[in-house]
């Protein structure tokens, strides 16, 4: 069993994506949140924005660093997590649930095939660090 949720797919840049009804929801992994340290600011896209896989779609700042959040798959941004604006610490507290960043609709399903599953991601993180 992986320590990362099995219902998500993962990128090398430490984003996760999982099905949420007809849409997909995107966030950063617990590993990424821990590496960043205390998150102080989250910059979210405007709903309606069309993105391709790998496009810089959101940004996250911590006391240590600022990082881009890339779209794990192409699609259209259908919702963003406004709660992060006032309480960015949610990203640290609940990276896989309440700390989601944005939702994508019309997702290009082929893009998802290129992502890692939970086991592969755990191995990837282990090999890297």
């Amino acid at each position, binding site marked *: 069993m992986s320590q990362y949720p099995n219902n998500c797919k993962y990128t090398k840049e430490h984003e996760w994506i999982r099905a949420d009804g007809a849409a997909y929801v995107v966030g950063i992994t617990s590993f990424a949140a821990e590496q960043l340290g*205390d998150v*102080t*600011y989250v910059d979210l896209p405007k709903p309606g924005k069309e993105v391709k896989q790998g496009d810089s779609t959101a940004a996250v700042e911590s*006391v*240590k*660093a600022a990082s881009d959040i890339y779209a794990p798959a192409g699609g259209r941004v259908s919702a963003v997590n406004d709660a992060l604006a006032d309480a960015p*610490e949610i990203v640290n507290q609940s990276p896989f649930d309440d700390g989601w960043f944005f939702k994508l609709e019309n997702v290009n399903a082929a893009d998802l095939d290129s992502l890692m599953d939970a086991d592969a991601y755990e191995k990837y993180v282990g090999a890297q660090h």
Partner: protein
Amino acid sequence: MQLIYEKSVQGRRAITLDPLDVPDASLPRELCREKAAELPEVAEIDVIRHFTNLSRRNFGVDSHFYPLGSCTMKYNPKIAEAVAALPGFGQLHPQLSSSEAYWPLCQGAFELLYETEKWLAEIAGMKQTCLQPIAGAHGELAGTLLIAAYHRERGHAHKDTILIPDSAHGTNPASAAIAGFKVVEVPSHEDGTMRLDSVKAAMTENIAGLMMTCPNTHGLFEPVVAEIAEYLHQHDALLYYDGANLNAIIGKARPGDLGFDVMHYNLHKTFATPHGMGGPGSGPVGVGERLEKFLPGPRVVKRGETFALEMPEKSIGRLSQFFGNFGMAVRAYAYMRHLGKDGLREVGENAVLNANYIFARLKDAYTPAFDLPFMHECIFTAAPEAKKGVRALDIAKALLDYGYHAPTVYFPLTVKESIMIEPTETESRETLDAFCDAMLEIAKKIETDPDSFHDAPTTTPVGRLDEVRAARQLNCACL
């Protein structure tokens, strides 16, 4: 220490003006404020004591060792200040340059600009330089605008992307983006340097250029610069040199000889003009033959025995008022004259020697981030210490209690729990030893008493600040 507002007593004044004895010339109503300004009401001695006491808490390279990596914070020799204060430089009105009739009065200043540009070009193997950019990132913007002008003239508008290694200086992607380019990051090899293969993997017909820092922000010299330059040129892409770390190779290697087409210098780093929080900075841009005609202007040129101003043939235009931060050009000129060729060579040699001396003394107590020899700065990873509960931040804070400015931490981003130390050439062996002793003592304390670090610093005017709260609850009342 109280804020000056907390010392305010209603009605107290430093200056009392006599009653008005001339006709009142009122400002137009729309320019007048409705409420009185909320200024502290204090006596002159309150103001003097407040700011004198604040200044005594100031921490700078004139008072302490300041080994901040990635950003050469070196001592500013006072001879350069004396030269910049000469009335012929300090009191020269910049507006004189705007009319040809006054150029005879500007000959000294023009000559200084001309000579400084020439010497900077000689030092880096560039064809020409321009002193207009007023900061390092401004120099990067100038350089990337020049790259854009080059491709535009050739009708290659599709060249809209700049490659930037993950070991490049942090401002590069922002500068390229402001110049209108897309940015693609190129990963470095695990040994911390660039490989030609990763440049090849990122190459497309849209690549306009690559911005490189050498030594890179891992403190390592890039071994395959020449091969990368040749490969880029085969694909009609240009190679940009970020001069952030020029201090490491000054007098030893020249970016122009290595194949770089365009670069910026930081007078406030390599050439010892004041640095940080208002410097003001100076980021001259240098170019090889391909980009010369696009340089910002007007430029000082020599016509016979006199100096004049001229706009380059296809200039990208003016980038700052007058000639950039002229006072910084004067200081850099004085610095170069003061040291001479041999002295500048020793700058590079001693900068590298000092960093490696620190590295040699600390490498058994801390974990080196890379295996290759470091240049002017050395990088450790505090990842093993972090597992014991002492993070890079805690080590940095503990150093404050020893009277040292903290090194750079958490940069470069490619190194976990990074600690980056750049001593610069001006420090003596005794200073370096005392700093290393402090670092070794800290290393021992991490083993014996890791919990004690969480309160550090305890001897500074303010203790550990809550950085997270400061970032989350930004108080912008002063804006």
